[in-house]
């Protein structure tokens, strides 16, 4: 009976841990406290080991007390090293949690190796044995114990996030405003810390140290790449925790490997996907936007060059070499091709000239450029210093801004060099 349902219970345990950690992890990432998760999951180990040695059992309460004590000791150590002994902060964190983790491993291998607590289970957790770790109510079998524990923890976290949504939001983004609105930022900090500790401890036992670190940081950071809205980030983060738990389980059974490790790997895949493809904050979106902007600027420069040549030397067509900027050959070439493709420029026996729509667009740009020059000159910039700033501003000036500048320069018809400012149609 248990065997049939085992995959379901394992996935459910992972999903509950993923959802709880993901929910809180989003706040940790937003508040730049990600390393806290890392530190906590290392530091609870000696606490758990000592509690186990003292009580001789793996009951929830001693484990929980031990783990919490471990977390508190880690915080105190880091504070002492950093504030009182004046060790750098990153070094303090590094020393404190490697030392505590080492202590935990030594305690476990030295004293507890015969019993069912070993170094492997510390790392990978025992999520595979979840279905056989039963909870009994009197004589009645109530189902796997970790599912109950993590279920309660998830409900608690959800309750905190829902009840204190507004308070946590304000305290996370604007602690000063929180204080002026009568919300204690410190209290919210401790509420969050408390929830993170409880969740870390609960998840640690069933899913192991690595999975806790990953679940606290990775889904939150991934979700942070997709949205600016806290509600969306929280939902996505919890959801990603769940998805990676499910995917990780199947990955692990296909690969015959550690379930917790596979869940982390799935999380890594979700993060990589977000890192590359998230529309606003992903790498591809960022590079595409940059490339688009570069091409637009290069296009504008080609159009302006053709128009200026026409105006000053009455030359209407230029060769490829004259138009393409030698320092940015590829972008410049792309820009020229796209202009031809859109019909703004026509090709006449190997040379390039402005087509009718191209003249309109180029005139518009030239007008922008010269208006800016005149305006900057009026602001006090000497005439020989106005070209470069105008060159940068001409690309980002829309109709409205152009009208505003025109109105600010009522009686001016030429730029500081005496060149005519083309009028709008």
């Amino acid at each position, binding site marked *: 009976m248990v065997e049939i349902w085992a995959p379901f219970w394992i996935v459910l345990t992972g999903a509950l841990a993923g959802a709880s950690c993901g929910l809180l992890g989003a706040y940790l990432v937003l508040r*730049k406290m990600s390393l806290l998760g890392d530190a906590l999951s290392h530091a609870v180990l000696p606490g758990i080991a000592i509690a186990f040695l003292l009580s001789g059992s793996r009951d929830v309460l001693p484990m929980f007390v031990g783990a919490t004590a471990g977390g508190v000791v880690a915080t105190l150590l880091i504070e002492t090293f950093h504030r009182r*002994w004046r060790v750098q902060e990153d070094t303090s964190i*590094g020393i404190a949690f490697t*030392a505590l983790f080492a202590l935990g491993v030594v305690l476990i291998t030295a004293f507890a190796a015969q019993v069912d607590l070993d170094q492997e289970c510390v790392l990978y957790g025992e999520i595979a044995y979840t279905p056989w770790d039963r909870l009994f109510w009197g004589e009645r079998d109530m189902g796997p114990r970790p599912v109950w524990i993590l279920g309660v923890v998830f409900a608690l976290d959800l309750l905190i996030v829902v009840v204190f949504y507004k308070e946590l939001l304000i305290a996370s983004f604007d602690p000063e405003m929180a204080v002026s609105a009568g919300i204690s930022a410190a209290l919210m900090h401790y509420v969050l810390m408390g929830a993170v500790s409880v969740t870390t401890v609960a998840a640690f036992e069933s899913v192991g140290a690595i999975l806790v670190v990953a679940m606290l940081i990775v889904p939150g950071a991934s979700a942070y790449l997709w949205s600016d809205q806290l509600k969306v980030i929280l939902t996505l983060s919890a959801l990603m925790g769940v998805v990676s738990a499910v995917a990780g389980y199947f990955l692990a059974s296909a690969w015959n490997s550690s379930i917790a490790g596979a869940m982390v790997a799935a999380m890594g895949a979700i993060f990589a996907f977000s890192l590359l493809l998230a529309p606003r904050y992903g790498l591809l979106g960022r590079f595409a936007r940059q490339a688009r902007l570069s091409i637009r600027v290069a296009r504008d420069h080609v159009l302006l060059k053709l128009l200026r040549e026409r105006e000053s030397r009455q030359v209407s067509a230029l060769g490829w070499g004259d138009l393409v900027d030698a320092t940015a050959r590829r972008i410049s070439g792309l820009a020229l091709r796209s202009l031809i493709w859109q019909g703004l420029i026509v090709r006449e026996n190997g040379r390039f000239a402005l087509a009718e729509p191209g003249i309109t667009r180029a005139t518009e740009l030239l007008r922008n450029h010269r208006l800016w020059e005149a305006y900057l000159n009026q602001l006090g910039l000497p005439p020989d210093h106005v070209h470069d700033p105008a060159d940068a501003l001409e690309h980002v000036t829309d109709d409205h801004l152009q009208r505003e500048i025109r109105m600010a320069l009522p009686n001016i018809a030429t730029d500081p060099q005496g060149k005519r400012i083309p009028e709008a149609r």
Partner: protein
Amino acid sequence: MIWDATFQFVLIGALLIGATSGTLGAFAVLRRRSLLGDALAHAALPGVALAFLWTQSKALPILLLGATVSGVIGVLVIEVIVNYTRIKADAALGIVLSVFFGIGIVLLTHIQQSAVGNQSGLDKFLFGQAASIVRADLYVMCLVSALVLIAVCIFYKEFKGLIFDAEFLAALGFSPRRVDLLLMGLIVLSVMVGLQAVGVILIAAMLITPAAAARFWTDRLHVMVIASGILGALCGALGVGISALAPRIPTGPVMVLVATGAFLASALIAPKRGVLARWARRRANARRENGQHFLRAHTARQDGQGDAVALTDIAAELQLPRARVHRLAKRLSRDGCVAIHNGACSLTEQGQKEAEFVVKSHRLWEYYLVYRSILERDHVDRPADEAEHILTPEMIEQLETLLANENIDIDIHKTGSGYRRTGDDG
């Protein structure tokens, strides 16, 4: 029996690991790369597993090559995340650390489940197993260590520049970015030296902890680098010695705990920066201040030069409990500043000098605060109380000549020639 060949290999290995990571750690800690070392050590695990999967070989050079490659990829991923997205450095470190490690665990468990993997012994890379070092491994470790240490000797000046003044380094014509990359590369290599014996989870501690311990002993970089290297080597050797007594306990955690012990001891007993030294210094300062306050109170209460003043009067002047004033008086009489008889005390010649000095110092501060318009006339007594202990006798002499030349009277409260406490005249 304990001096057999295996143990010698292990001991030499531990010395190498400690020396290399200790030396590099000094730079890593000062450059604020402690946690980066941790992340890249964790990131090395999938490299070890993949190198084994591809080559089916357990040879250390091959596994370390894989580890180096994946460690470097981990560092690069962190750089990309921090430089090109809105995710901050702490989360980037956490992501790379946990995801790479997770992937490493997946590969490792996958290898262990397969037939060949059972004897692979790759799991020693998690917590480290010093006993598994053989002669061939030692050659590899020696080579990498030598490489790292020679590079440190050659580029010492550049690293120093990078740590303390990157702009100066740039002005000298070096690219700080390249020097930084070189340093990170060396950190990766020094992590690799210890991977087999200490394991990926805790090797970063061998980088961080000895360096942080050495930092307590000195303010000079070359001293710190050498001290950190030696300390690392000692911790490594001691750790190996201890874990040889209890073979079941993996070596890595023991070495780390020894290093942590060295860190705690240094923090406690190091001169100047140590906790005890700073405590003693604070206590000595407090004693000196209290003694000086006592002497000033004495001069304020005495009617004429050389008169005795009752301790109760001094207690009232200082607004301190009488028992404390008694203790103060006893200490001052031990130092030869006052003589006590029948509940009253008088200043000795030395005490007279000291008292004069304190009063002058106090007045100079008051004068300075008023004439620099920092504070109003009736607000200067308290701050001067705090600051009067800072001036040295030489400074006072200089200031007095300066003020005498300009014909300035520093007695801003016009208490006259008798050294009276300024708050009392009305």
